[in-house]
């Protein structure tokens, strides 16, 4: 079957198979992405990040339902950690999204991180592009949970929602770890628990000290995702950010930055692969290592020589 033609004609099975092909780097993966590329760039991408158990999946489910009522189609990419020991993963985000399963306007795909450390998998951005090309209006990316380097989401999303919960005890710690910088919108979920007001006050204070985002002061919403409370308000805040992005020119700037960094990453990947393939299959790599061990050459000289040879 022509997977791209079927995908563009609306086949959900083709959409699903395309993501698999790209995730597993099947032979046809590059061809698929090439043909889909002209059809990308339409969807608004919303990142949902925050510590494990904060309610990201529950919140995504509720947000998606409201956007569906507005007639928008939805893609969801939910990332969970791959075990570094077995390479396996339990992908459980769908448990909170079962009511969306039979809605044909929603497509949900779970992905394991497969060794990637930034909170997404290496192929998350491609999965988003595939859903975008399939015509989804809004695409959610649910990350693994804010870790030490959960910054990938900012590059992948237009609007990043950081989900926090009261009573973790490490509120300030989390805020220090760089969450402040990545959030366009904050949701204090589980606001039915004690400490939501205090967390909001602390967060307000830190955000007011932050001068970087002078043009857009990230709003803070309180939600009880499990009961559907505060979701309409959160949507209004997200929509406000979408309007701000368009009116200020920030959307164009973010998209340009993303296009640039994705191109750079692809160039790096291909140059790496090309150079390493050549020097390892020719035996040059082993010779270089041997020469270094005998201190006949230094690594900088080798790299300079190598580059000169490749650029000739």
């Amino acid at each position, binding site marked *: 079957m022509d997977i791209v033609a079927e995908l563009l004609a609306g086949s959900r099975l083709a959409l699903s198979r395309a993501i698999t092909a790209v995730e597993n780097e099947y032979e046809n993966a590059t061809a698929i992405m090439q043909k889909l590329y002209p059809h990308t760039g339409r969807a608004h991408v919303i990142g949902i990040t925050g510590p494990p158990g904060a309610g990201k999946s529950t919140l995504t489910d509720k947000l998606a339902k409201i956007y569906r009522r507005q007639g928008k189609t939805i893609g969801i990419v939910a990332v969970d950690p791959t075990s570094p020991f077995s*390479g396996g993963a339990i992908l459980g985000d769908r448990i909170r999204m079962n009511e969306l399963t039979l809605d044909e306007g929603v497509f949900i795909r779970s992905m394991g991180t497969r060794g990637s450390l930034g909170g997404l998998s290496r192929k998350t951005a491609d999965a988003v592009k595939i859903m975008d090309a399939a015509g989804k209006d809004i695409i959610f990316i649910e990350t693994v949970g804010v870790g030490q380097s959960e910054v990938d989401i900012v590059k992948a999303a237009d609007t990043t929602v950081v989900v926090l919960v009261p009573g973790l005890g490490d509120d300030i710690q989390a805020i220090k770890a760089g969450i402040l910088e990545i959030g366009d919108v904050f949701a204090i979920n589980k606001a039915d628990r004690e400490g939501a007001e205090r967390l909001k006050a602390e967060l307000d204070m830190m955000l007011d000290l932050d001068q970087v985002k002078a043009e857009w002061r990230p709003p803070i919403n309180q939600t009880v995702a499990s009961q559907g409370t505060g979701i309409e308000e959160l949507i209004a805040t997200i929509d406000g950010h979408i309007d701000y992005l368009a009116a200020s020119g920030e959307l164009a700037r973010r998209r340009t930055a993303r296009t640039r960094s994705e191109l750079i990453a692809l160039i790096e990947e291909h140059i790496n692969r090309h150079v390493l393939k050549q020097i390892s299959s020719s035996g040059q790599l082993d010779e270089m290592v041997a020469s270094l061990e005998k201190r006949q050459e230094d690594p900088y000289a080798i790299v300079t020589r190598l580059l000169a040879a490749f650029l000739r």
Partner: protein
Amino acid sequence: MEKRIRVLVAKPGLDGHDRGAKVVARALRDAGFEVIYTGLRQTPEQITEAALQEDVNVVAMSLLSGAHNTLFPKVVKMIRDKGMKDTLIIGGGVIPDADIPGLKDAGVSAVFTPGTPTGSIIDFIKTNVK
């Protein structure tokens, strides 16, 4: 990147026994599989749609309530009707030996009953997955 075997562990019907499903899910994860778990009380329609969206290689259903003779064949038919011809479909739980031949005829490739070592489930999947 090498291919990972993706498995949907599903609990069809109203059966609330989920220990076995969780034990199997964890064992499959530890064997290096990506396991999608969707929780309790799934309709055959939901199982089929989740299998399609997740593009799983295996659909593994767990049932201890006695409804396997109606629910398992229904899921097999819906999966095939949606174009997933190669998906390996297996089941497990409290299932009388007498029912197993009928389930196999209906397209359930294997049935694992209480006391099955998880290693034999893993071996079966590795040998039979397409």
